């Protein structure tokens, strides 16, 4: 790129200033910048498969045209090179094309005109490994291990600005090592070591913990029959289940359109366990509170309290369509950083309380069996163990399960751990995603295994 990512703030602000000067009084322009300077090292067999760096920035602009008959709008996103001359001339060409086209598109009755949400600046500097020492620092401590995974690190930027004066900026430097370790019989454990400051002793601790868990996987695998079993789900497994709430469950639009399985909570026909409380919680600090349009969410948005639906994620467009207020949700009305309330099950009591049943560290490939009813299927994966009378017997062979959110967080929920883990977002589709979840473990009276 023609400039370092850390200097994109002024580039972005100068570009949008040029854009705003071209607008007529009937036009409003909202802009968003997404960018990163990332390093990726893909690992297999505790060696490097592919290593590289990606610099990327793109500018998203939404133009609104106000006329007596209503508002028209359209959006354009393009890659920025960091070079002033080429980015400025591209910007001017895009704006003039949008100004032409917007006049001919249909009126959008639910278009939400931007407002000025003010100035925000959040800068989280980290201390990351030098890009040329990453391989040595990651792998020197893994000799003799069968490790696979991905190290992703670097700066991530988000900015918004609109022609009414809004300016928001988010800059964070962070890393994640999302990895798994394998026994010769292909049993595996999973961990994610993530943060903003690399610390070798913490890294070694994380590896040690994974190695200890791996040793429990060396016993002969146990084949379970289909049926219902008592189960403990560790925080990473709970995070996968709670992730399903982002698929059209806590979305206000989905509830109103009859698609969300939580619509039965709103009507009072059903309820979840009084132990279960879920919040969209920006106090985790892993993601900007502003969305792509610059709407700012409250620090905490309570969604489920003691089994009752007390809130939902409302995007400005849904708010406009139904005449309600938005709470700064993204257009998809999914979570950005949810947290689930802890309970009182102590770590040392988990196996004893489980008694005889399955201990599930991770789940895999969740999808709906019946989305409208909240029935989910998925697999067990990584460290999933058979426990008898509070003692680990050995790993289980992979099982398919199929059960309902109304049972996981309702009728079958016996206890929630008194500790929680941060499950870092490690997704890198299109660009490195931000976010994370703060999740406890849960103990279930019964979970249905089907294949």
């Amino acid at each position, binding site marked *: *790129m*023609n400039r370092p990512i850390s200097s994109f703030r002024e580039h972005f602000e100068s570009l949008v200033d040029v854009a705003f000067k071209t607008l007529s009084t009937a036009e409003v322009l909202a802009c968003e910048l997404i960018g990163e300077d990332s*390093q*990726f090292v*893909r*690992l*297999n*067999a505790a*060696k*490097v*498969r592919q*290593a*590289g*760096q*990606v*610099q*990327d920035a*793109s500018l998203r602009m939404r133009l609104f045209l106000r006329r007596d008959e209503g508002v028209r709008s*359209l*959006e*354009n*996103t*393009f*890659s920025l*090179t*960091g070079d002033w001359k080429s980015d400025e001339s591209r910007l001017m060409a895009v704006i003039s094309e949008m100004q032409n*086209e917007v006049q001919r*598109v*249909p009126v*959008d009755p*639910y278009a939400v005109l931007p407002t000025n949400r003010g100035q925000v600046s959040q800068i989280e500097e980290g201390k990351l490994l030098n*890009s*040329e*020492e990453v*391989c*040595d620092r990651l792998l020197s401590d893994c000799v003799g291990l069968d490790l696979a995974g*991905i190290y992703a690190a670097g700066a991530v930027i988000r900015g918004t600005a609109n022609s009414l004066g809004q300016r928001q900026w988010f800059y964070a430097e962070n890393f994640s090592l*999302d990895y*798994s370790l*394998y026994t010769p019989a292909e049993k595996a454990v999973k961990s994610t070591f993530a943060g903003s400051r690399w610390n070798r002793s913490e890294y070694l601790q994380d590896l040690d913990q994974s190695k200890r868990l791996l040793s429990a996987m060396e016993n002969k695998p146990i084949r379970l029959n289909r049926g219902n079993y008592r189960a403990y789900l560790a925080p990473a497994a709970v995070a996968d289940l709670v992730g399903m709430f982002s698929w059209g469950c806590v979305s206000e639009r989905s509830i109103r*359109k*009859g*698609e969300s399985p939580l619509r039965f909570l709103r009507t009072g026909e059903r309820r979840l366990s009084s132990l279960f409380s879920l919040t969209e919680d920006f106090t985790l600090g892993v993601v900007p509170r502003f969305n792509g349009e610059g709407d700012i969410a409250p620090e905490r948005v309570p969604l489920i309290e003691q089994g009752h639906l007390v809130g939902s994620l409302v995007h400005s467009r849904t708010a406009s369509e139904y005449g309600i207020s938005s709470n700064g949700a993204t257009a998809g009305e999914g979570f950005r950083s949810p947290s689930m309330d802890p309970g009182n099950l102590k770590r040392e009591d988990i196996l004893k309380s489980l008694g005889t049943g399955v201990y599930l560290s991770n789940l895999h490939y969740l999808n*709906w*069996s*019946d*989305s*409208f009813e909240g*029935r989910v*299927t998925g*697999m067990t*994966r990584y460290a999933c163990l058979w426990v008898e009378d509070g003692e680990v017997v050995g790993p289980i062979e*992979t099982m*398919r399960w199929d059960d309902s959110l109304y049972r996981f967080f309702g009728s079958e929920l016996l206890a929630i751990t008194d500790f929680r883990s941060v499950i870092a977002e490690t*997704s890198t*589709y*299109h660009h*490195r995603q931000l976010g994370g979840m703060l999740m406890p473990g849960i103990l279930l009276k019964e979970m249905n295994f*089907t*294949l």
Partner: protein
Amino acid sequence: MSAKNLNKILNEICISPELKKAEWIGLREVRERHRSFVGQDGKIRDISSDNTHGIMVEVFFHGQMGYSASPSPHVSAVLESAIRALRQAQAASKWSVAPFDFGASSPRVRPVAKGHYASPKSVSTMSPAAISELVVMMSGRMQKSSKIVQTLAYIDCLDGESRLVSTSGTEIEQELEGIILHFQATAQDGSITQKRSDGENLQGNQQYLTDPSLWLRVDRVAEQSLELLSAPECPNETTSVVLMPSQMTLQIHESIGHPLEIDRILGDERNYAGWSFVRAKDFGNLQYGSKLLNVTFDPTVSGELASYSFDDGGNPAKREHLIRDGLLIRGLGGLESQTRSKIPGVANFRASSWNRPPVDRMANINLEPGSSSFDQIISSIESGILMDTNRSWSIDDYRNKFQFGCEYAKRIQNGKITHTIRNPNYRGITTPFWNGLKMVGEASTLYTHGTPNCGKAEPNQVIRVGHRSPVCLFENVEVFGGAK
């Protein structure tokens, strides 16, 4: 920029003494534009254009690849990027999982290739305003009843180009146009909600957008969403199942395509998507399905979503049988995976965009037609269920135990289709399932589907794939319905 211009940049940066130690340098430039139009409930919901452009530099040092990608096409920025890529390769070479031989002037994993690919052109007679009107009309037309609570119509027009040049003399240009069309209706009655959808995923060829038959399909989606509200639940039983091409595409994708990816077999993917029950020794030996199962890798089908002439390693693409008469014979691995595994592969080393390195991907994975007509298939069934249009999919990390759900089903009794069934699901285990393949539809039952959303790899990449399949009949399948 043309491949000639990209080559000029490559020649200019190669003069730099800082790149002297590179064994091989490749530049891959990608430009892609998506124009998306969304109509909802008879109104415009969104109009957007997404334009991405950048250059990936790949450098090999001691047989290890390092990469660096940036949106800037300026020579100075590409040079800077190439130096970063070399340093990544140098740092990684000490820990290389599979160093490749770059001693020869034409290295095996990056062959010298020259050529051009152009997909069929999209008939670009429709202006953005006209396409906006079309999605509004489609979503409006589906609002046939107060029980239809939401309708959606989506069109994504894509055009893209990619160029690959290298220090060993490769010069490739590929151009692509395509249309993704999707429309759906959600119906609700009391506590019952149901959804029905239809669509197309093709290169070029947007005639169907102006063909009157489009409106018959739009009407059918709305009518069937209503029909599902009062349909009985899918029963719990083990029975014969007919899968329409709209579900076969998913069945092929998840339980043939992914498990045959050689990088999964090599373990590259096991921290994310998973690995595979298929082992190197299975090629040439494993009876994957019944004798009726013939599956090809075919990037040469005109109009199918993942057709191309070269993969992103420069390997010329051609049609190959993966499974012949049920026997597994070839894997889905590019030249790097073939070199590492010694398994015969295909030209499928592909990247999602300029900002990701290539890995083994599906392209068009097609199930070849058999000899049974649709009527012959149905009339052969004493009791069974026909399922149409995927709505849910899940499979384990070795690609054995799957569960798939469809939007719409029909009961088959005594050789005839009788009534509609809702919430059809089925589950099974990959090779027993494919060995239960009892009849394969003739060419008249073929339909070409695809998806722009196949996810894989670390860092994550989403890529376009195509699947053409006939109607198929499977025996002894465990089916079941929705929530209790």
